[in-house]
């Protein structure tokens, strides 16, 4: 009986571990600093996490389908630079769809390589990280991009505006998370994504078009990246061409923290959102208790490894690995 209870505790911990950790974390930091859970602070954390969060939503699809996307950071730089440049040339109304089209084009290219040609996604997106970075530098001529008339444009609404008292980036993040969450959990397409990531061969034999599913996942990822680029561009109205550099790793960290397996087939969008919030609140909480900014990286390191470790430890029923 005792062992059964232990197992039950283990399985609850494994399934909800990330939520429990999140709750503990929030309580500790609220006790340490009363400002931590104030409305202002929560809003500011979620707003600054929104860009990372929107990107993480798309990457979750890719990861569940059993692939990786390391190119989202440099793709986000690309979107930001392109939309800022086109804003002054053809006006915001045309610039936004043009930027989305270009970013989706990049996503389609990656999706074609990984989905239809079945190339290794790690290497393909690593190559695209470099290639898109080069593309962005070529496009911008190595210069920073700025909107000429920063006061008179309505373009700033996506990054700086508020609606019903809530910052627009948060609204975009929440709406997109809810929509994509429904797609993943409640539609046939969502089930195909899980099937392809869980066992690609079995999925193929049961009539799922594997290539097309993977392709669509990369399109979704690119769409999310374009949205993130839009928020970023609108928030700052000017940008360096390396604005997204390194974000791919933070995005991946959030997705892993949310419990999606890099082998594919598992993970949910809701948990990715939790992963994003954990990263955001860690960063914020550590600053509030007066620690150096860079401590967050070390803490993130420990948390990622602990999260994944406990997850697989619960699955195999033993804390330490069985590797000889």
């Amino acid at each position, binding site marked *: 009986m005792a062992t059964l209870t232990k197992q039950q505790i283990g399985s609850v911990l494994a399934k909800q571990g990330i939520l429990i950790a999140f709750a503990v974390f929030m309580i500790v930091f609220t006790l340490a600093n009363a400002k931590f859970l104030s409305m202002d602070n929560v809003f500011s954390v979620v707003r600054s996490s929104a860009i990372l969060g929107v990107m993480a939503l798309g990457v979750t699809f890719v990861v569940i389908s059993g692939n990786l996307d390391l190119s989202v950071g440099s793709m986000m730089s690309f979107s930001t630079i392109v939309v800022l440049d086109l804003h002054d040339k053809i006006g915001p109304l045309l610039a936004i769809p043009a930027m989305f089209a270009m970013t989706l084009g990049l996503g389609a290219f990656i999706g074609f390589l990984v989905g239809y040609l079945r190339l290794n996604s790690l290497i393909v997106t690593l190559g695209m990280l470099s290639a898109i970075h080069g593309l962005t530098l070529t496009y911008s001529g190595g210069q920073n991009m700025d909107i000429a008339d920063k006061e008179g444009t309505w373009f700033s609404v996506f990054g700086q505006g508020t609606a019903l008292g809530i910052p627009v980036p948060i609204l975009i993040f929440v709406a997109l998370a809810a929509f994509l969450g429904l797609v993943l959990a409640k539609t046939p397409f969502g089930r195909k994504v899980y099937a392809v990531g869980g066992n690609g061969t079995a999925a193929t034999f049961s009539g799922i078009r594997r290539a097309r599913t993977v392709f669509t996942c990369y399109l979704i990822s690119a769409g999310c990246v374009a949205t993130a680029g839009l928020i970023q561009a609108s928030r700052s109205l000017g940008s360096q061409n390396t604005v997204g550099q390194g974000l791919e790793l933070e995005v991946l960290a959030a997705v892993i923290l949310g419990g999606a397996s890099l082998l594919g087939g598992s993970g949910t969008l809701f948990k990715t959102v939790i992963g994003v919030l954990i990263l955001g609140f860690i960063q914020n909480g550590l600053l509030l208790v007066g620690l150096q900014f860079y401590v967050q990286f070390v803490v*993130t390191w420990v948390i990622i490894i602990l999260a994944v470790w406990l997850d697989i430890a619960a699955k195999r029923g033993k804390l330490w690995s069985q590797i000889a």
Partner: protein
Amino acid sequence: MLQPGKLSKALKSGAIWGFIVLELLFFSIAGEFMSLSDKAFMDFENMLLLLKQSAPIGIIAMGMTIVMINGNIDLSVGAIFAIAAIILLDSMSWPIFAGLGDWVIPVAWLLALAGGTLLGALNGLIVWKTGVDAFIVTLGSMLGFRGIVFMFNGENPTSQLNWTLVDFAEAEFLGLATASWFLLIVTLAIWFLMTKTVHGRNAYAIGDNREAAVNAGIRVGPHMMINFSIIGFLAALSAVVFYSESGSVNPNDGQLYELWVITAVVLGGTKITGGAGSVIGTFGGVIAIQLLRKGLGHIGADTSTVNLVMGLILIAVLFLDRQLNIKGKEELKI
């Protein structure tokens, strides 16, 4: 009789050298028309310089070859590189070593190398004991180690110029720079390790089929930990060689090194899934990358073009590899 597998194998193992020859030809000819300088690209001096400039990436790439043949990956090498550089430069000014004079140099070297080895071993230990995938473990430590670098000195560079050290780093022996010698010696040592020792054979066995390796009695965990220590050591060695000459390290240094290193290793024919690859191929990959960077610079292209071309070549190589790979054809085509 020429079997279909043999042709593709020969094509694959020779491909990187063919690519290098192609690069040399292209840049020599294109350089005639487009170069801003009068100097020929295939100049002997220029090629020696190229070997020297390949050293920082090349030394790490040798370690990455073992780790990838093992079926693992190490994303934290750039951060280890930066930490080792800081240990090297900072420890030379520590008060306890004040009485050592120039003997502080070997001490600082040892400290930096020990630091890198320990960090690598830590990665390996976590991979071994927790069973978490190396990709995740080193992704985490890449963030963590970089955090430590920034915690040490904020955004400020750490500098320490020791002229004896600079003289050593800039010295030439038999016409080759110090850094080139280090690259060649490391290449030779790792080649020996991978082709002539039990450890090397085990590395291939584990990467090819871990279950089978375990059943054959290979202790996979310690083996992988040794390999992670080796790559940590080599990342530190690379830093030691490079920063002995430059004498100043920025906290961002070494960022994206993992990208360059992995590109070199994959170009050299090592399989990302493990079990296949060669040190000599990696050496070719390193040279090919450096040639590309240098050659594009020679014909007047800027860094943006280098990044673009590099990424596309990596994907093209992967595509060609897939087409040449007989095994790939057996897989289900959809």
